[in-house]
């Protein structure tokens, strides 16, 4: 009934600092491992377990389960992990709506939750919590970055996103920094797969650029149809639609597209090189931003375990907040609301041999926090 992966097979060289707190630590990982969205969860899990394995920490025990991308199942798993498995920490959720279902209740029971992806604005602002650490981004960040970047080249942008809260947050985030004019603003259906009607409107709008946020299969469908339609207006978007999990399915249609993210595989730092090499060697594929964030989450936890006992919540929270780990994203600190302060980069989709991937072409924000930190009373 339990699926527990005991990490730390190479535990011979245990660091002295780890010895001081050599007590078992249980981490619950709730992520999406089945259905259409499983690619993201698989990357999350793979990077997380790999980081734990590389660390050689024998005391960490992982409880990994599949939420099937359903909020009810995620809630049930969280309850089980807290009550039955008695986990010390929770992490792993990919989607905002699942995070909203799990996080408020978990942190209210004094369980520390670390988000490896998804940062809904509520949890960054009014409902922030000392037990909630977001190691990824606040949901608006990537969109804001694209808005900022668009000011450089564009004056009349057409924007579109799905008609749900994350979609509206996206366009709000973009408009927060974009100073030009809007050629149009469209909300599409959630789960929509045909964008011919929207592309026709884009062509007709006289726009000089297009910004879109369409996660998962929606983005793949849009990019393919956009490229096939022959409309030449440049496209940009948050990195979600141009990451390693999606690029192979979009194909050359994505070439040259500018997108924003907090991480790219060519970021020049030692931690990132080690991560990309280790991930490729282990899994024979390139890591995605979800893998990078998950790797950072694992290393953040490990760094805190080296400093404090997970049973001493106050000390452990302080150790997490110090963010004393080597992030693959370079500089990484926590803001007052436990959300990252980090650079947001602009990347371009390029081809390396036969493989589509991203390279960094600019920095949209340096040391960016988020728009909701002020509302957080912690």
């Amino acid at each position: 009934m339990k699926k527990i992966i005991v990490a730390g097979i190479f535990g011979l060289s245990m660091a002295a600092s780890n010895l001081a707190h050599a007590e078992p630590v249980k981490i619950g990982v709730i992520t999406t491992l089945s259905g259409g969205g499983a690619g993201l969860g698989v990357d999350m899990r793979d990077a997380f377990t790999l980081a734990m394995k590389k660390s050689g920490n024998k005391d960490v025990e992982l409880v990994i389960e599949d939420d099937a991308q359903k909020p009810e199942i995620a809630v049930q798993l969280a309850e089980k992990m807290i009550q039955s498995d008695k986990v010390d920490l929770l992490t792993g959720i990919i989607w905002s709506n699942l995070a909203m279902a799990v996080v408020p209740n978990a942190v209210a029971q004094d369980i520390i939750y670390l988000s490896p992806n998804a940062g809904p604005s509520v949890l960054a602002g009014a409902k922030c919590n000392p037990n909630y650490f977001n190691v990824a981004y606040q949901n608006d960040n990537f969109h804001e970055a694209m808005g900022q970047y668009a000011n450089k080249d564009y004056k009349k942008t057409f924007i579109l996103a799905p008609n749900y809260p994350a979609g509206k947050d996206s366009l709000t985030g973009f408009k927060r920094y974009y100073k030009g004019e809007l050629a149009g603003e469209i909300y599409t259906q959630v789960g929509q797969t045909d964008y011919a009607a929207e592309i026709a409107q884009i062509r007709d709008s006289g726009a000089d650029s297009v910004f879109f946020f369409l996660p998962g299969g929606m983005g793949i469908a849009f990019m393919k149809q956009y490229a096939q339609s022959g409309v030449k207006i440049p496209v940009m978007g948050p990195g979600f639609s141009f990451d390693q999990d999606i690029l192979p399915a979009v194909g050359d249609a994505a070439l040259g597209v500018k997108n924003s993210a907090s991480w790219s595989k060519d970021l020049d730092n030692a931690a990132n090189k080690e991560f990309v090499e280790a991930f490729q060697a282990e899994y024979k594929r390139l890591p995605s931003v979800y893998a990078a964030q998950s790797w950072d989450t694992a290393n953040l936890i490990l760094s805190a375990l080296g400093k404090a006992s997970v049973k001493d919540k106050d000390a452990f929270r302080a150790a997490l907040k110090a963010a004393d780990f080597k992030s693959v994203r370079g500089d990484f600190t926590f803001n007052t609301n436990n959300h990252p302060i980090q650079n947001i980069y602009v990347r371009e989709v390029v081809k390396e041999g036969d493989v589509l991937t991203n390279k960094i072409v600019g920095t949209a924000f340096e040391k960016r926090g988020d728009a909701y930190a002020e509302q957080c009373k912690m």
Partner: protein
Amino acid sequence: MRGGAYARTSELPLTLDLSPQVGRGGVFVAHFPASESIRLSIALLIEQLLNGLQLGVMLFLMAAGLTLIFGVMGLINLAHGSLYMVGAFACAAVAAATGSFWIGLVASLIAAAAAGAIVEVTVIRRLYDRDHLDQVLATFALILMFSEGTRWLFGSFPLYLDIPPLLQGAVPLPGGGQYQLYRLAIIGVGIVVAIGLYLLISRTRLGMRIRAGESDREMIAALGVDIRTLYTVVFALGAALAGLAGAMVGALQSVQVGMGEPALILAFVVIVIGGIGSIKGALFGAILVGVVDTMGRFLLPKALALAMPAAEAGPIGAALASMLIYIVMALILAFRPSGLFAAQS
């Protein structure tokens, strides 16, 4: 909301100038006090109508198989969307291996028909004399197995499939617009399939048996027709049509696990509107749903923007548009409880 063509006051248009002179191919201009206007060019309108037609044709390919299977065997097949997914995955995998979309297309037909035949022989065959509830549960179970099985075989990441070089590019439209060749080809395939099905059912021996099976199941068995084989053939034919739709759509959108269910729900809407068991109804219903959905997405936000601030009109219009086909369906069924072209059963 900052300024721009979309930030508009809530005042209503004072005049509606319908003189088709301006811009390419004629433009309807609604004048606003703030000297802003909504442009609805005829070319764009034609393009959107074609988009609706193309969506409708895709739905028809799905719905034709579904309605055929229901009409002949009286079976509700929730797993029809899974056969659509099988077609898309087979096409993508074979096209990636051989480099040819066309071989992939053939493979999708074979794979979907084979999957359909296997499922019919092993599972579906036992369900014909059961009530609809058992059929719902069994085919629901098949969805779970197909989805996870596909992920098992092909991994968790979406597959790549592009339109063939032959069909890339666009053709000019009257009025100055242009339309994508591939989408026109889809419309063409849909028309060919519709005619083919008509001929098959009205002119061939197989079609005669299908018609006989629709009207009287016991009789046809009494006449010595091998009904088991007939059912397997009909099921495989329906599956192949779904697979064909999946392969053609796979080139346009994302080939991924779970792609079949939204298409399935729409196909059900189509056959219910058209009248279950009626191919003609499926064709009509599919085009109605395709056009209503596309035009709703296109026009509703614009129409609402005439009456309220654009910032609110966008999301509300989009919300209404996503409910629109279900509203249309409920209306049609309220007045014609057996759909538009109800079959005799």
